[in-house]
């Protein structure tokens, strides 16, 4: 008899997790190259204890089976910094992870470290198409990154940034700090479209997230009032049944 409450409860839990996802999207509204996250719900169908159908339907619980990234491109913003590089279209930069494994990012907010090496804001080296780190001499001025990723200074060409893509980009695992990891093989893009002096902004649309949030909150409330009513119904049933028994 309590199954309907459990179904409502499964919905409350899922809605709470969706709310967390929305909160994370909002918190990262101004995070460079952040991609919005969405929840995917399915009905999880089980048989009732007696095996019967209730009103021609089997019991269906809510389950959040997957969260997926909205991979649409964020707006490209000019920053004026020569080491800010945005990827237009598909692709990820390759950086060296802390344990030597490659990590991938669309956040092209790079800088130089004390040895003149091109690194991410966390100090991880950015790799060329040959898998090598990129070094600049102190005298190298006028760093130019061409649209296809070749880096040159007035003293000549230094290397070509590696930009890769994947068969299943949604299966990349987020590692925080704008980085992704995966065990899929990276497929190099020969002619990426890069923009120097620019960064890709987060693709979160504040207004859309707001409406999603309102929706979640309303659904949450209506589910909660359903549980209230259900509770009332059961209470009433018990009272009525008890009366029948005492007669």
């Amino acid at each position: 008899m309590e199954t309907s409450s459990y179904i409502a409860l499964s919905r409350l839990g899922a809605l709470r997790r969706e709310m967390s996802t929305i909160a994370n999207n909002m918190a990262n509204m101004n995070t460079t190259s952040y991609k919005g996250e969405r929840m995917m719900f399915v009905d999880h169908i089980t048989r009732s204890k007696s095996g019967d159908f209730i009103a021609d339907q089997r019991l269906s619980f809510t389950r959040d089976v997957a969260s997926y990234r909205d991979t649409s491109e964020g707006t490209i913003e000019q920053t004026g910094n020569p080491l800010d590089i945005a990827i237009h279209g598909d692709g990820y930069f390759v950086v060296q992870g802390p344990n030597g494994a490659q990590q991938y990012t669309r956040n092209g907010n790079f800088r130089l470290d004390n040895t003149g090496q091109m690194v991410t804001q966390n100090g991880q080296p950015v790799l060329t198409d040959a898998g090598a780190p990129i070094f600049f001499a102190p005298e190298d001025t006028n760093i130019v990154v061409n649209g296809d990723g070749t880096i040159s200074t007035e003293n000549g060409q230094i290397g070509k940034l590696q930009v890769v893509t994947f068969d299943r980009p949604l299966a990349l695992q987020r590692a925080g700090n704008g980085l992704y990891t995966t065990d899929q093989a990276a497929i190099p893009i020969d002619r990426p479209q890069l923009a120097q002096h620019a960064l890709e902004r987060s693709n979160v649309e504040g207004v859309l997230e707001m409406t999603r949030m309102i929706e979640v909150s309303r659904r949450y409330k209506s589910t909660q009032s359903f549980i209230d009513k259900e509770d009332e119904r059961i209470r009433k049933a018990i009272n009525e049944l008890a009366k029948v028994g005492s007669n």
Partner: protein
Amino acid sequence: MRSLSIAATGMLAQQRNVEVVSNNLANMNTTGFMRRRTEFHDLLYQNLRRVGSTSSDAGDIVPSGVQIGLGVKLAAVYRIHEQGNLNPTDNAFDLAVQGRGFFQVQMPNGDTTYTRDGTFQLNANGQIVTHDGYPILPNITVPSNAVDVAINTSGEVLVKLDGQVAYSNVGQIQTAIFANEAGLESIGSNLYLETPASGNATTAAPGTTGYGTILQGFLETSNVNAVEEISNLISAQRAYEMNSKVIQTSDDMMGTLTSLR
């Protein structure tokens, strides 16, 4: 409730954003000021259902799993070393660096600091000093009987002494460059300190390959772009408001929970 603390990280981040923007705007007319930009990173992710796990014993792999992010953090506030405009001042000791390079300043404690602010003056001994009275390095003294001072693009200080026709060289200004200028530490008063992140200073005469040239009678204005800062301010404020709405809504949802019988 996770969304409460996630939204809190968002509000905190936007607060930092506004602080950085307001510092940029406050220094709009500061000579040689370099604007700052905040850079945010997403925090760790909680795997409710791991990416790449299998959904059946036939080996089907779930396409994306359930990953819930835990908010945002301030990753860096970095300086953008873009050349500011050069403003003519007609003052003989106002110097601007066109291109890369910093003037070197000797602090009272013996440290060397670096600056792009070239508003120099002479002290009682005729030494070229900053507006705080700290001498520039290498020390240059202008004789008291000098009637004209010319500083050329490669930093040579040439003076014309009273009664002489030819200019004589009394010193050479050296500028410093770093592998990573953005790694210098700001200590206020337009001065920067060398850090492990910036790399060691290499000094040379201005105009050497890789070094900028010096312009006498000019000052470098700040590189703050007011329009850009104001638009950053607006987007930060909106993001702040939206995050506070998330907190309100989460609180609301928790409220309905406690009213459950």
